[in-house]
């Protein structure tokens, strides 16, 4: 009797959720198929924990308990509430949302270009936004640290214009993914060289421009958030809703046409959404590299290739990675705070190399 129970328990354990999960973690796609809601739940939890840790991090150390108390509005020390509400919370929210936007932009681009190496940089969105911002800064019209609503808008316009240019230049009867990627790289190279020239001409602004190039969350406050959220509110849902079309585009132009998708329009629309996501994120935090490349990669390893799962997972992972990197950026060389873009590139490039070396599970 007890042995049968024992056997039954063991088979139960082996076939149960936990047994599956540990096996899946080793063989890949732990949250594909029916286990996807579990992945979303876990991702949401990780994100919540990272948010609290991110708010707790800074020149004054807070405990998670103190953070939650301050957020709830009954802190024992009033200055905790000032720190949390006026300084830390906007930075956390901006990291959360821009990380999500970079992640989603990358996921969309990798799907529509059918290339796992595509990233926001390849649409020209990043380099266009950076050049526009740098031109504006070089004019002496504003300083980066200065919270203003004009600079982000200019960066946004630059990013969208650059990706529009990429699409038009690559368009030749139809726009093929390969030609789109190559055109994007070339346009980006030209724009980046423009940025370098502006840098050389305006060496007095070098410091602030360099920070902008690398991407940083330092000094981001509510004013920046006020510029960011309307764009996020439009672009994030649009991007998530486009997963249906991305799924069809992933099957190649011929199959996509056969399934009733107008391929050129769909690809242009998705490219525009990705450019909007990337440009509005760059406008607030600067040209953070690698996030748009890595987040979708990890997402696909967790949930498979169905864009309806990859897109939300890339949103979660992009936000989580940027929050984690910004915590590291603040802690690594205390009391100096590093630009988060530098930390992401330093950690992201080796990580990507690692992913490439253990390709195909």
């Amino acid at each position, binding site marked *: 009797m007890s042995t049968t129970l024992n056997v039954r328990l063991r088979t139960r354990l082996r076939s149960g959720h936990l047994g599956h999960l540990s096996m899946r973690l080793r063989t890949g*796609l732990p949250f*594909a*198929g029916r286990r996807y809601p579990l992945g979303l739940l876990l991702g949401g939890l990780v994100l919540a924990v990272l948010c609290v840790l991110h708010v707790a991090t800074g020149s004054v150390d807070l405990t998670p308990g103190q953070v939650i108390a301050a957020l709830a509005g009954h802190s024992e020390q009033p200055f905790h509430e000032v720190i949390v509400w006026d300084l830390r919370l906007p930075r956390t929210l901006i990291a959360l949302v821009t990380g999500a936007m970079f992640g989603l932009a990358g996921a969309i681009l990798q799907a529509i270009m*059918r290339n796992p190496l595509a990233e926001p940089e390849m649409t020209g969105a990043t380099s266009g936004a950076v050049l526009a911002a740098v031109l504006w800064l070089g004019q002496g019209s504003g300083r980066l640290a200065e919270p203003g609503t004009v600079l982000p808008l200019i960066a946004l316009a630059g990013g969208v214009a650059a990706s529009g240019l990429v699409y038009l230049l690559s368009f030749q*009867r139809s726009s093929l993914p390969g030609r789109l990627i190559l055109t994007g790289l070339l346009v980006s190279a030209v724009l980046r060289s423009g940025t370098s020239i502006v840098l050389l001409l305006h060496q007095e602004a070098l410091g602030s421009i360099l920070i902008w190039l690398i991407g940083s969350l330092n000094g981001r406050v509510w004013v920046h958030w006020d510029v960011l959220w309307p764009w996020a509110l439009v672009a994030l849902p649009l991007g998530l*809703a486009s997963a*249906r079309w991305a*799924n*069809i585009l*992933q*099957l*190649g*132009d*011929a*199959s996509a*046409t*056969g*399934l*009733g*998708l*107008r391929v050129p329009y769909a690809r242009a629309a998705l490219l525009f959404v990705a450019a909007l996501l990337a440009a509005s994120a760059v406008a607030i935090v600067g040209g953070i590299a690698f996030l748009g490349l890595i987040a979708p990669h990890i997402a*696909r390893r967790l949930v*498979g*290739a*169905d864009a309806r799962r990859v897109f939300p997972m890339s949103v979660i992972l992009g936000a989580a990675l940027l929050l984690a990197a910004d915590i590291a950026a603040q802690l690594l060389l205390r009391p100096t705070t590093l630009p988060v873009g530098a930390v992401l590139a330093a950690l992201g490039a080796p990580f990507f190399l690692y992913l490439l070396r253990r390709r*195909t599970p």
Partner: protein
Amino acid sequence: MSRSFVNGAAPEEKPEKPEAALSARDVSLGYGERLVIRELSFAVTMGQITVLVGPNGSGKSTLLKALARILAPSCGAVYLDGRAIQQFPAREVARRLAILPQAPVAPEELTVGELVEQGRYPYTGPLRPLGEHDYAAIALALEQTGATAFRPRRLASLSGGERQRAWIALALAQETPILLLDEPTTFLDIGHQLDVLALVRELNRTHGKTIVLVLHDLNHAARYADRMVALRAGQIVADGPPQDVLTEALLAEVFGVRARILPHPVDGVPLCLPFATADTAHVKSSDAETAITPTTETAEKTAGQRVGS
């Protein structure tokens, strides 16, 4: 499971009759400057299996792409149910005809189930998710292609034959009366080739689907076609039942090969046995006759022995 929707598209969703007619009228087709097909007219016979054959570059795949409106003709037009196909809403066309392109691509991490689910795209919208009928259509498509067993598997883990079944299931999930298949047997071994062709015949005979195939293997074409269309240099040179189309003169003219046509010893289907290339694309039959008579006899003998043994 209800099978009421098997024949053609779902009747309850269609205001018009699901019976579709597909034809190309005076189409010129090409890639960039290079024209592959010049002013060709062709009408698909509804309810039959039509096989397009021809040498590489003869325009058979190009014609199929035009019929599936993947390639827009530079002149002329393709008509579906009497209307120019380009004037139809894209998803409406996708409810009437499905295409399996040559060498289709998909992310390797995609599962068979996820792939076949995309076949329901023409029936869904941003605010209309997959419903009961969609899931039934997906399940039926998987069942018809024998792909139910590997539904949860990733494409990367499939063999060539399984992969092809998954792609055919995707096209079937579209529930269209017309099915266009571009070389569905390429890269498959002989057993899996016959599997796919038997499936095609079953879809036609049992479910009444109109099927247009591009095939390279002439013997397969003769065996499975109701109507065989031979193309050369963008023109239709022969069109009719396989026994009328598959002739020694046609093989010399279209493919530039010398061959003998024999009835298959088992069922009499024309069987093509090539043995040499012709020196030119146009071999005069009298020349060929005198030149090849001795060789033909030996070829016939060896072929007979092989088939017999």
